[in-house]
């Protein structure tokens, strides 16, 4: 108690006190000389026996022979290692007493003005635990919201001195809890909010500066602390730190940082190794947790089945992550954040080092790297003259986790660590008491302490075993005493020996001793961990590729029945030559080019790769349903390249899909047309040549008809209201556009008037009005279909596609006249009231009226057999075979305006094709190979290999897990129920997954 008061006062004096003394002046000289220590000056530079002189919190000299100041207290530190104080590069802080004010942002999750150090209150226990790990500073950040506020660097001294209050702006891809109202309501909206807010900050700054100059010509812009803070951060190039839960989130952060030219930091996930190249290329500074997963519960085979392969692999591969990042040139700093138990930090750090991370790199990640990025390059992170006297003192090397940290020094003040000797006691000892000789075994873990004594053949377990600092005590009944009695033992650890007294029932004290026998016991020698032997696959988990598919320079399909979906129709015994991923020649009896890879396809059928014009596959977030209009959200921001549905759909011959926003609101979000390039990253999935589109929705979903009785207040609740929402949106977009144009035209305005705000919600609507963005409208009933056509006609644009459009057959003539296409279910009906009149003859009736028709899935399951959906066009209404296949090839390609490149087998087009075992519209047709861009992404043979490989990998890891002791891999086991691949089965009917 006394000590802490004293230290508190010291730090105040040290900071330059502005407040008056409450009693008398305290003086505690802070001049020390630390002698004979192993001094780690900086990573890679160690002085084996050196002296460090410090004065008033600063290092004044370091070296093997330095002048010793006469007023210094000299401390002999022989046997100790001194490191610069470690920085725990992340600590979560709960916001405290922060309430919205009139100057707050309108979204409750946007508060960049908050400062972590304002909310930080040191918690004795965690401060103590952190110091025990050698940390002298923490980098603290708030843990609420999307724009979470400014991070701060705080000392771990008693007064929690602030080194820097604003280190970075921290952001999180936060989404609200299920059932919580408010915008944004999904990851889609979260990213849109990030982008809009960053734009708003720029706009805000401009507006304010113009207003300051021309207050007579402008209305005063509303003051907004959030935007002002962000504008300031942007102008000062403050880093933006994104908290990431997995490697895909890291990639999303990278995309945003590129768009806004941000200095990117990541609070890492530990999964970075999976997309190492992409992440390393962006050169972010990564704050890396060392929370390696504990052992999955694989003790029962059926439980092991609950874990997906990537979880099992991560268990083995996670400790290699730090080394891989460092070797790729990424700057990392370590944090204890995310650990279930802080004690695991050093254990996991040792494991990372055993896996090949150099001690130099590890030390840098604790000292110089964070200090460099945190702007403390001249004051923190090294033991050099002029640096702050922040030290970690360890008895031996820090990187042997059995060596305890003795003390940390913060600003020249020593903080002793209460050393727990449990680890010293643990092990086997030769025990003797009087004439008795035996073996004493003590097991100690943070959770459990137990011991036993073996005398000859008898084993006695120790009762009431207690370890307290260097003291040990227990009681036991030993067999060789004359009368059975409990004997109380008490003793001390001293330099590798135990000794003490045994108190017998009669009160007599006998001496006992024990010496360690660990040294001569080879059994306890744990095998050294080696780096994981597992190979990465893309994406991680079953069916990922260890090597991405390669494009043969030249590929020759020999003697197939070609269903071209083009002008050539169906050609028997036809060859196809492919070069560099494009179709070069189609015809009979072609000659293969030299060195071409030849596929003998006699008896096989080849069709274009199938296209699904309405899908939600690979969307990590589908509905931003919180508002009626959310055209600002973009599917491209939330693509999940690891969605297993991509692979499963390839196995059904699908190669291109349009990923659409859901149908929870009238104007949903921006679409993404992707090719199923399994294994690539999110950006490379996108078919960048495809024109942009926007999803609209009408009817029951947008008026929340099936959402239960609580959802009855959002406008619109009727089809009448849906129309007006549309009209209002397009009217606003028109006004917005004319504002932007006028402002851009008049240079005088630009100098004196505040600029119109760029609105990400209205931008895509303007593009619709201008005809550069395609319109896809979820619709069912004829009345709403007609209404949409009329609204579009009034505003002068064309609807590209009606989606679902199950009553399209009732107004097909109007659709044809308007020029709208139809992407429809083949035969779904009766799952809700608005589809009671749905009929499978819909496609044929529309097609006969001149509408361009495609069949689409809207379902990860259906998407695996689109050729059979096409066959229903023949069954219901009698399409020709060619027409039927076209509904899933060239027709959707034309609807998406990508028919220049895909959708048919024609010279010059992308080599996206499928090889079928049978007539492609037969139920017996099996997709044997699927090629995208002239690369083989699926084949039956390869699938069998991948399946066998996965079985082998799982079996190998399970063996390794079973052989690993619990204490060698502590930590929380992964949660098999919660991983990003788990997605609900999706269709318009499945309310669980929301409205599609």
């Amino acid at each position, binding site marked *: 108690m006394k000590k802490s008061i004293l230290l508190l006062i010291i730090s105040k004096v040290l900071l330059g006190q502005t407040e008056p003394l409450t009693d008398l002046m305290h003086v505690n000289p802070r001049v020390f000389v630390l002698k004979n220590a192993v001094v780690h000056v900086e990573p890679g530079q160690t002085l084996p026996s050196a002296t460090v002189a410090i004065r008033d919190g600063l290092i004044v000299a370091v070296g093997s022979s330095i002048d010793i100041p006469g007023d210094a207290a000299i401390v002999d530190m022989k046997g100790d290692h001194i490191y610069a104080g470690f920085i725990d590069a992340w600590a979560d802080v709960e916001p405290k007493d922060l309430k919205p004010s009139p100057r707050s942002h309108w979204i409750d999750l946007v508060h960049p003005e908050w400062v972590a150090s304002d909310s930080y209150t040191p918690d004795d226990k965690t401060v103590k635990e952190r110091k025990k790990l050698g940390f002298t500073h923490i980098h603290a950040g708030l843990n609420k919201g999307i724009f979470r506020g400014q991070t701060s660097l705080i000392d771990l001294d008693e007064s929690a001195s602030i080194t820097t209050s604003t280190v970075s702006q921290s952001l999180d891809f936060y989404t609200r809890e299920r059932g919580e109202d408010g915008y944004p309501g999904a990851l889609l909206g979260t990213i849109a909010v990030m982008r809009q807010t960053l734009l708003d900050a720029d706009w805000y700054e401009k507006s304010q500066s113009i207003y300051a100059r021309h207050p007579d010509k402008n209305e005063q812009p509303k003051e907004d602390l959030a935007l002002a803070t962000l504008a300031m951060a942007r102008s000062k190039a403050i880093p933006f730190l994104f908290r990431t839960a997995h490697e895909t989130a890291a990639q999303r952060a990278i995309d945003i940082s590129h768009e806004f030219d941000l200095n990117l930091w990541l609070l890492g996930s530990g999964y970075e190794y999976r997309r190492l190249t992409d992440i390393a290329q962006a050169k972010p500074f990564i704050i890396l947790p060392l929370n390696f997963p504990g052992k999955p519960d694989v003790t029962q085979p059926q439980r092991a089945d609950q874990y997906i392969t990537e979880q099992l692999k991560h268990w083995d591969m996670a400790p290699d992550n730090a080394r891989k990042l460092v070797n790729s040139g990424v700057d990392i700093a370590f944090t204890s954040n995310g650990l279930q138990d802080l004690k695991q930090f050093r254990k996991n750090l040792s494991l990372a080092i055993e896996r090949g991370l150099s001690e130099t790199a590890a030390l840098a990640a604790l000292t110089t790297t964070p200090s460099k990025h945190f702007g403390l390059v001249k004051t923190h992170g090294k033991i050099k003259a002029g640096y702050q006297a922040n030290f970690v003192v360890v008895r031996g090397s820090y990187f042997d986790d059995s060596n305890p940290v003795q003390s940390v020094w913060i600003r020249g003040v020593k903080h002793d660590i209460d050393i727990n000797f449990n680890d010293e006691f643990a092990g086997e000892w030769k025990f003797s008491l009087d004439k008795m000789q035996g073996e004493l075994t003590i097991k100690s873990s943070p959770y459990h302490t137990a011991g036993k004594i073996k005398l000859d053949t008898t084993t006695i377990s120790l009762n009431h075993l207690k370890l307290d600092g260097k003291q040990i005590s227990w009681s036991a009944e030993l067999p060789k005493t004359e009368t059975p009695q409990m004997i109380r033992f008490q003793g001390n650890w001293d330099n590798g020996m135990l000794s003490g007294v045994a108190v017998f029932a009669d009160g007599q004290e006998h001496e006992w001793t024990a010496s360690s026998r660990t040294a001569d016991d080879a059994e306890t020698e744990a095998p050294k961990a080696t780096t994981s032997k597992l190979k990465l696959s893309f994406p991680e988990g079953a069916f990922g590729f260890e090597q991405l598919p390669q494009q043969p320079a030249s590929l020759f399909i020999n003697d197939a029945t070609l269903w071209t979906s083009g002008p050539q129709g169906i050609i028997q015994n036809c060859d196809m030559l492919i070069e560099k991923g494009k179709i070069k020649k189609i015809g009979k009896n072609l000659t293969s080019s030299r060195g071409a890879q030849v596929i003998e396809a006699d008896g096989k059928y080849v069709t274009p790769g199938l296209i699904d014009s309405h899908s939600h596959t690979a969307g990590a977030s589908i509905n931003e349903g919180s508002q009626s209009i959310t055209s600002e959200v973009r599917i491209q921001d939330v693509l999940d390249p690891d969605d297993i549905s991509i692979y499963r759909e390839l196995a059904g011959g699908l190669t291109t899909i349009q990923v659409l926003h859901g149908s929870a609101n009238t104007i949903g979000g921006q679409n993404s047309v992707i090719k199923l390039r399994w294994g690539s990253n999110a950006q490379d999935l996108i078919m960048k040549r495809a024109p942009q589109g926007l999803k609209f929705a009408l009817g029951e979903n947008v008026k929340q008809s099936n959402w239960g009785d609580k959802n009855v207040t959002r406008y619109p609740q009727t089809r009448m209201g849906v129309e007006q929402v549309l009209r209002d949106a397009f009217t606003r977009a028109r006004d917005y556009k004319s504002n932007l144009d006028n402002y851009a035209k008049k240079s005088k305005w630009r100098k004196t008037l505040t600029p119109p705000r760029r609105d990400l919600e209205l931008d895509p609507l303007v593009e619709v009005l201008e005809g550069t963005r395609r319109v896809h409208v979820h619709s069912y009933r004829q009345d709403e279909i007609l209404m949409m056509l009329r609204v579009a006609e009034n505003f002068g644009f064309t609807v590209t596609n009606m989606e679902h459009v199950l009553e399209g057959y009732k107004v097909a003539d109007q659709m044809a006249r308007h020029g709208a296409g139809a992407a429809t279910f083949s035969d779904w009906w009766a799952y*809700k009231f608005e589809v009671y009149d749905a009929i499978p*003859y819909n496609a044929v009736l529309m097609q006969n009226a001149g509408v361009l028709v495609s069949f689409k899935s809207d379902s990860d399951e259906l998407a*695996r057999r689109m050729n059979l959906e096409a*066959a229903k066009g023949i069954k219901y209404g009698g399409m020709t075979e060619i027409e039927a296949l076209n509904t899933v090839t060239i027709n959707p390609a034309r609807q998406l305006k990508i028919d220049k490149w895909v959708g048919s087998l024609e010279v010059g087009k992308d080599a996206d094709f499928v090889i079928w075992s049978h007539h492609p519209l037969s139920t017996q047709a099996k997709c044997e190979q699927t090629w995208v861009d002239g690369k083989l992404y699926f084949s039956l043979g390869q699938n069998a290999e991948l399946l066998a490989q996965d079985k082998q990998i799982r079996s190998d890891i399970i063996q390794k897990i079973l052989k690993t002791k619990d204490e060698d891999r502590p930590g929380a086991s992964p949660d098999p129920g919660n991983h990003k691949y788990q997605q609900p089965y999706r269709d318009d009917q499945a309310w669980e997954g929301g409205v599609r």
Partner: protein
Amino acid sequence: MKRILCLYLILTSWIWASDQIPAAPQSQPILIKGGILHTVSHGVMDGYDLLFEKGKITRIDKNIPTTNEMEIISASGKHLYPGLIAGISALGLVEISAVRATIDYDEVGDMTPEVRANVSYNPDSESIPVTRSNGVLFVNVVPRGGLIPGQSSLMMMDGWTWEDATLHHPTAMHINWPDMSIDLNPKAKVKVSEQEAQRRQRVKDLDDLLDQVRRYEMSQKGTSKDAAHDLRMEALIPYVNGEKPFFIHAWESRQIEAAVRWSKKQQLKIVIVGGGDAGELTGLLKESQIPVIIEGTLRLPRRRNSNYSESYSLPARLYEAGVDFCISTDGSGFAAAQVRDLPNHAAMAAAFGLPLEVALRSITLSAAEILGVGDRIGSLDVGKEASLFISSEDILEITSIVEQAFIHGTKTDMSDRHKNLYKKYQEKYKQLENIKD
């Protein structure tokens, strides 16, 4: 040519059809001449005639002599099949799954063994004609929800009332086997050991229930005349005695395994429904002679690392291992309107290793056997129900068109809501063309 013919057939049937009218009982013998007979029980017989009278098949032969009273239908080049059978469905118990007022398959309470499906089967459901338009002539309709949702009934896809339409009741008592998986999330609210205890308890609850039923039965046999009655217990007696089967809905391997072991211990007759993981337990299922009703092959693999074709090839795995099974669509409210896709589920199984004739059997005779009516329906055999249909081509191909169905010998109205709306709007576009002209 074929297509024109079938279109003609459809059109002619519309001329009189508005809403579909249930057929009158068969009044004259009907002879179907010269079709390709898929008998299921004894192979394919090309060019044979089939005669049925008073609802039963009376003769299958070449060149059956005709009489004046016979109605003669030529099926030359056409395919003849026994009516297809869906083993599990909510058909008729729901009209529109998003409209609560139309849902009648889930009674309140965890245990409602007393309820029987056929009484709430709506014979005027629009789904019924749509379903039989694709050759599915029998559907086992099943209550859903809770531990014991009730008793199922096998319905014919025609009839004025639910009583007319009931072919067999009850087919089974249904049990939704309790979840046997363990939440391994380290942050799970309930500890693993506690979850294991709860899991044991759930099975014990079932044991206790059976025990109670047995004691109840004893008490009713007792001397006391005023023993109180309990409809739930009454309903369970024939199942607990092993006279009738429990249909146990179980998807995950631990559920299937537990259900099988429980049925053996309790000496019950059971059928596994769902059976997603049944392929992992073929040894146990075969040895215990427990059949499986596969709830659809057209569904997603159960785990991320499952083969993409897992559900397609499940029937072949069971077949190769010698486990009895049939293929059904699933019993959800959503799928009630999609029972017509039943042959597509079997066809997919055939594409992934199940012999074609076994695929056909899995939606006809095998289903009939599992539902306890193998002696009445499921194959083209003399003495069996004349519930059959004529198809333009192989029914396992999507492009096939069912031209005429017969249920219990009666000629079924082949129109349906979809065909009627098709016709109505063809008329619209005809009118528009006339205006243009």
